[in-house]
C-alpha cells in the first residue's frame, strides 16, 4: 500500500501520508532503481558509440532509442510522471510538449535535408557561370 501511494504522487507533490508515518525506504528504492537503470543505459550508450560489433549505420538509431529510454526512466523514477490521478494534467501537458518537440525537430530535419538534397552542388554552379 505504501509503495502504491508513493507512485501516485504528482510532481512537486507531498505524499498523502503524514510526515511521521512516511516510509522513506520505498522512495529510496524508487530513486535507486532509477539511478541503476540510468547508469546501465548510459554505459550501454557509450559502449554502442565505441564498439565495432554493431553494424555501423544502425548505431545512431540505437543511440536514439537508448536516449529516449533513459529519458523515460528519468520521467518515471525521478520526476514521478505516472498514471496516478493527481498526475493526469501533467501527463497531458507532457504529451503536448512531446508533440511540439517532435514537430520542431522532425520538421526542421526533414526540410533541411530536403533543401540540401535539391540544392545544386557548388562546382556545378561554377561551371554554369563559366559556360555562360
Amino acid at each position: 500500500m505504501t509503495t502504491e501511494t508513493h507512485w501516485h504522487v504528482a510532481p512537486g507533490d507531498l505524499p498523502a501520508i503524514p510526515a511521521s508515518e512516511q516510509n522513506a525506504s520505498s522512495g529510496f528504492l524508487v530513486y535507486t532503481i532509477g539511478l541503476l537503470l540510468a547508469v546501465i543505459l548510459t554505459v550501454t550508450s557509450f559502449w554502442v558509440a565505441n564498439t565495432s560489433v554493431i553494424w555501423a549505420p544502425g548505431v545512431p538509431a540505437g543511440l536514439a532509442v537508448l536516449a529516449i529510454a533513459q529519458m523515460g526512466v528519468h520521467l518515471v523514477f525521478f520526476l514521478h510522471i505516472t498514471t496516478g490521478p493527481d498526475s493526469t494534467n501533467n501527463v497531458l501537458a507532457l504529451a503536448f510538449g512531446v508533440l511540439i518537440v517532435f514537430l520542431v525537430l522532425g520538421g526542421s530535419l526533414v526540410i533541411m535535408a530536403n533543401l540540401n538534397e535539391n540544392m545544386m552542388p557548388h562546382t556545378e554552379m561554377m561551371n554554369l557561370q563559366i559556360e555562360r
Partner: protein
Amino acid sequence: MNVAVEMNAVRQGESLDISEAGPAPKRIIAGFGFWIFLLSDIVMFSALFASYAVLAKASAGGLTTVQLFDQRNVAMETALLLLSSYSCGMMSLAINSRRYLATFLGAVVTFLLGAAFLKLELREFQGMIALGAAPERSAFLSAFFTLVGSHGLHVTVGLAWLVLMIVQLSLRGFQDVVVRRLHCFSLFWHALDIIWVLIFTVVYLMGVLP
C-alpha cells in the same frame, strides 16, 4: 465543520471522480504550473537541438566534432550530473519526512556535484577556444556553444537557486512555501538531467561516430 471533516475523509479515498474532488491542493497546482514552465523550456531546447543537428557538419574548414570532443570528459560530466540528480532525489525524500540535517546534506552534495559538472564544462569550453574553435569560427561551433552553453547557463541558475533555498530553509524552516519551492527546484534539476541525456547522445556520442 462536519462537512469539512467528511470532505477530508472522502479525499483520502482513491475512487473520487476528478470533477467531484473540488479544487486541487496548492502543492499540486504549483507543481503543475512549474511543469508547464519546464515543458516550454524543453520546447526551446528542441529548437536549439534542431539547429545544431542541421549545422553539425558545417565546420567551414575548421575543427570538426571528431577532433574536438573528448569522450572521457563527457562521461565524467554525465556521471556528475546523474549523481547530483540522485542526491537531489534523496533531498526530496528528506524534505518529505522533514529531516533537517539530511535535507542540508542532500542540498550541499547536489550543489557540489553540480558545481563540479560546471567546472568540467567550462574547462572544456576554454580548451576548445584555445584551439581556435571559438563560437564565431563556424556555424557548427555557434550552434554547439548555444546549445551546450544554454544548458550550462541553466545549471548555473539552478546552483544559484539551490544556494537561495539553503538560506531560506535555514531562516524559515519547513514552511509550506519553502517546501513547495524546494520541490520545484528538484523538478528543475531532474529536467536539466533529461536535457543532458539528449546532449551527450546527440552532440557528443553521435559526433564521434566515424
